[in-house]
């Protein structure tokens, strides 16, 4: 059984069709990437899968539960690292974890242990009692991973996990994501517009453009389909999206992304 399944999943905002009938199947334990330019519909798709947005039509199931009709059970089974900074700068890392441990119903006897284990997993034990406001972008992202894995979800959703991070911080995040799969058997669903991220991390990749999935497969296979030995994922991308430049996005999204970058940088 696939741990994530969508069937003609669609989301419209008035006249705009942000996600146009996508069909995805992700088996357990896979690292699956949704790759595409800004405005392709990736964030909308991930919002539907994490129950933040109801679909306009079509259906989706996460961990066996329908995202619309069994949304509470989906939420209990998933972790989510949004694109926007989602940790509270006015608290310490430990406090952020404590509040979410309580929200997720981690039993009191296990809380300290879980929090300590999560902090250790992302390498933040020493900084645990410092205010998050003083954290670097990489540290914030690592804390967000620690938060998302606290309740040992079966699926972890990551929306543009390394945007705005320097190369070192990015490597650390990639390593942590891979460890999550190896140590906890988590399924990872991420969105990105970085080719090398999709190439490096993902078992399979779906290329999205203008709301549709235009290509789907393992990175090596997609590159091979270009017919050359040294094709890059960039070329694959350009090929399947028709060399389009600006699909648009919108002002709010872009300024918001830039503000996120400013906070992480």
């Amino acid at each position, binding site marked *: 059984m696939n741990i994530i399944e969508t069937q003609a999943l669609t989301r419209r905002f008035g006249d705009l069709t942000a996600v146009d009938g996508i069909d995805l199947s992700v088996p357990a334990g896979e690292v699956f990437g949704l790759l595409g330019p800004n405005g392709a519909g990736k964030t909308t798709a991930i919002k539907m899968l994490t129950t*933040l947005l109801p679909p306009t039509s079509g259906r989706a199931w996460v961990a066996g539960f329908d995202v619309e009709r069994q949304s509470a059970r989906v939420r209990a089974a998933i972790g989510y690292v949004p694109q*926007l900074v*989602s940790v509270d700068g006015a608290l310490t890392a430990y*406090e952020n974890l404590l*509040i*979410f441990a309580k*929200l*997720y*119903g981690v039993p009191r006897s296990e809380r300290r242990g879980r929090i300590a284990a999560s902090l250790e997993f992302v390498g933040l034990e020493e900084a645990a009692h410092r205010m998050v406001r003083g954290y670097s972008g990489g540290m914030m992202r690592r804390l967000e991973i620690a938060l998302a894995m606290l309740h040992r979800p079966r699926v972890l959703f990551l929306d543009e996990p390394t945007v705005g991070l320097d190369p070192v911080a990015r490597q650390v995040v990639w390593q942590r994501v891979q460890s999550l799969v190896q140590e906890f058997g988590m399924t990872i669903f991420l969105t990105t517009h970085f080719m090398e991220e999709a190439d490096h991390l993902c078992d399979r990749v779906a290329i999205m453009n203008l709301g549709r999935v235009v290509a789907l497969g393992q990175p090596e296979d997609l590159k091979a389909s270009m017919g050359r030995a040294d094709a890059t994922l960039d070329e694959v991308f350009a090929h399947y999206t028709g060399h389009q430049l600006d699909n648009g996005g919108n002002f709010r999204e872009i300024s918001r992304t830039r503000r996120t970058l400013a906070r992480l940088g």
Partner: protein
Amino acid sequence: MAAFARQCLALAEMELRKLRHDPTELATRALQPTLWLAVFGEVFTRIRAIPTTGQMRYLDFLAPGVLAQSVLFIGIFYGIAVIWERDLGIVHKLLVSPAPRVALVLGKALSGGVRGLSQGVAVYLLSWFLGVGINWRPAALAGVAVAILLGAATFSTFSLIIACIVRTRERFMGIGQVLTMPLFFASNAVYPIAIMPNWLKVAAHLNPLTYEVDAMRALMVRGGSSIFGLGLDFTVLLAATLAMAAIASRLYANLVR
């Protein structure tokens, strides 16, 4: 049920911990009540411009109004905090947690209450310093605390509803101003209902702030009494809180569209 309470309390705890890290906000928020009581209150007491019911000095009449006003302002400010970019990611996380929308909203309302209580302490100290005859009996203090909690919960949830509808900071600023001042002046915070023109009396009777002030006036100062009766005051406040919470629960998810 226990999980629900735990989730609400977790959100309130978040607020408490933030306050513990940075209590200076309490001092800056005390500025406005200081101006109202120490300047406006003193002046109007002297010139006896506003007739208060009974023998109460105007400053004593005003103090509960100022308390309610500062709680109102904190509540309305709350909505802006929610739609500031820095908190939006956190809203995403909260909405993806297993906590039901109602728990999130009530937790936020409780957080507003916590901030209101800290403000209450400031106004009490200020009033006492200015010579207001404070009622220090524990039952009275407890009653005021409940009135603050419910009042703060009502208005911060109301503010949250506005935030969910307008969704941008600019629009919220515009609407926030438009709503706060009328709420304040169409109440018995600064003057008794008896001296209002009829149209204002009607508005005041429909305003939850009026009942909050009425309860506070009865409980905060010595010799104070309630026009509507404490039973009605607290019932109105409770009903207002629950009504706001119900609406906000429906709208909360709009923040992340």
